[in-house]
């Protein structure tokens, strides 16, 4: 029962986080590529509720940063021009899931004002918007790669476990080859084989499919194990005795028994692949500019001056931790739940 509650909690949180990312265009005040060249590395914009005269407002407002005019003091807030934060404003056009076009944003401020909730990067692009849009790329990478791995895993593991014999031996030895490789190294080696100068979307798709293709061995092994024991269960043997074909047996009786493992594997693999994409992009081998991904958001931290002077560039990294926590919690609960079901 406790595991079920844990699972429900994790799934709810996960859904909330994912909908933020899916509707990035709506929640983000700006487009991910909009540059404000005059405002590089702006610190996170503070939301104010009290003005200079001490009056309290319900609607939050912000001040732009301007040059203080004195050397060595940097920027100060421009108290003469408050910009109230408006909700449901029209702004940069975007598409949700690549289909529904809109230009409605949850919040925004009027033009010369700028709202950077997580600060801005070297080109004056809003980090908050880039974090949300970057999540789309990174999560999509994780999802596609995980689906690919698991589907190959089902086919290979199912065949190996169901037919056994030399087929099994051959497929599992092949899988060992993939398990024996240092996979991050292999990913690099494969990335080296891809041309460096092709369109960013092609890079993305190639990268994702390579990640997915490399990772099939572990799910295949697990599925093979389940199939091995499943095909010896009495009702499967009975169905075979009634003359059921292999395809029918696999579809109706054997593969449904692997769904629990599949789900657990998916929840484990998605964050792993998200991390792989982040790592590759961080090292400059993944998805490149101008597409934002969580890896490219972090890669600016490789420069010492960014790391030491602009603490808010670190925020995306910190926001990843709760996401992974939720994913692992879900996987953990699924595993426990699955265990208690089979026992």
């Amino acid at each position, binding site marked *: 029962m406790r595991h079920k509650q844990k699972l429900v909690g994790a799934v709810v949180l996960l859904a909330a986080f994912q909908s933020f990312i899916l509707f990035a265009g709506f929640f983000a005040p700006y487009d991910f590529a909009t540059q404000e060249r005059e405002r590089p590395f702006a610190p996170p914009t503070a939301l104010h509720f009290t003005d200079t005269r001490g009056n309290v407002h319900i609607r939050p407002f912000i001040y732009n940063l301007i040059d203080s005019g004195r050397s060595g003091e940097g920027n100060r807030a421009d108290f003469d021009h408050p910009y109230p934060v408006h909700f449901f404003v029209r702004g940069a056009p975007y598409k949700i899931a690549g289909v529904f076009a809109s230009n409605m944003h949850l919040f925004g401020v009027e033009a010369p004002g700028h709202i950077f909730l997580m600060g801005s990067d070297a080109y004056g692009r809003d980090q908050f918007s880039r974090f949300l849009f970057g999540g789309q790329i990174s999560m999509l990478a994780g999802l596609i790669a995980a689906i690919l791995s698991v589907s190959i895993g089902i086919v290979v593991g199912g065949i190996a476990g169901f037919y056994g014999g030399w087929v099994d031996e051959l497929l599992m030895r092949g899988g*060992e*080859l993939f398990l*024996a*490789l*240092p996979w*991050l*190294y*292999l990913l*690099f*080696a*494969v*990335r*080296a*084989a*891809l*041309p*460096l100068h092709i369109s960013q979307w092609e890079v993305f798709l190639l990268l994702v499919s390579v990640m997915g293709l490399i990772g099939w061995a572990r799910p295949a092994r697990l599925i093979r194990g389940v199939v091995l024991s499943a095909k010896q269960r009495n009702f499967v043997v009975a169905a075979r005795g009634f003359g059921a074909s292999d395809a029918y047996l696999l579809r109706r009786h054997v593969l449904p028994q692997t769904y629990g493992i599949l789900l657990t594997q998916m929840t484990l693999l998605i964050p792993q692949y998200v*991390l792989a994409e*982040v*790592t590759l992009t*961080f*090292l*400059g*081998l993944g998805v490149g500019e101008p597409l934002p991904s969580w890896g490219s958001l*972090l890669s600016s*931290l*490789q420069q*010492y001056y960014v*790391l*030491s002077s602009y603490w808010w560039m*670190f925020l995306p*990294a*910190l926001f*990843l*931790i709760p996401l*992974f*926590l939720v994913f*692992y919690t879900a996987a953990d609960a699924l595993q426990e739940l699955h265990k208690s079901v089979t026992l």
Partner: protein
Amino acid sequence: MKYCARRLFHATLLLLGVSIFSFVILQLAPGDFFSPMRLNPQISSRTVTRLRSQYGLDQSLPVRYGHWLHAVLKGDLGPSFAYNSPVTPLLVARARNTILLTGTSMLLAWMLAIPLGIWSAVHRGKWGDRAGGAVTSALLTVPDLVLFLVLLLLAVRTGWFPTGGMVSASFSDLNLWDKMKDVAAHLFLPALGLAIATLPTLLRHVRSAMIEVLEAPFIRAARAHGIAERRVLLRYALPVAASPLISLFGFSLGTMLSASLLVEVILSWPGIGPLLVEAIVVKDVYVVMGAVMLSSVFLVAGNLFADLMLFAADPRIRVE
């Protein structure tokens, strides 16, 4: 003995498979190290052609693989285009640095994991164990990338640790003792980061292995005989719990070359990691091949070592 020979044969086959696989993939790439030279008006196309044929890049794939394999069996991993030198000494020097780093961190992680794991297995369910469990779960969810960046931030902000490289600029002027201190100072941060990254997994395994053994009847019998708790734990329980730990130890030996890529790149430790990333960007194929092969050899050898150790340590396996 027969078991040993069979395992060795399998390992060799595996390595051969890995080498063919990575070789083919690397050569599938359009263009090579010399292609950007074609765009350079100062280099004639004849020079490029000559360079390519000098390094054998104009030959067919199986021929090149044959040449490469033949050379590798003689200990020559081929030429590095970018460094204009053989790959072997280049790789060996970098591998030494990597092993210094991973060896230190492994020592650190295991020396912490075993006593802590035993302790929390003994105090299972008490607040100490629960707190430890919460900390390890939390550490598991922190991506390594973020962890290393935090350490880098710490180093840059506080200035307590030197960042980047393995030695200070004045290294050659120092005497032996100061040289060792200098390397140790540079080593501290990356080794600590790597140890923190691996500790949670080790700790969990030690704890669960010990818990399983401590529930066994023979432990209760030993306790009932009035044998001191310390002796029960270390002399009776630990050797029985060792089997999964030996496998794990073999695995961590095996990843000694490949586990530290990220920490090396982020904290700029001059190991194999940065070399590999650079080589990939410029398509220095034999360096990539060498690095991949060397780390695969380590991984396979580590697993082999673990299996042989298990074979020696656990009589139950020998019977099968």
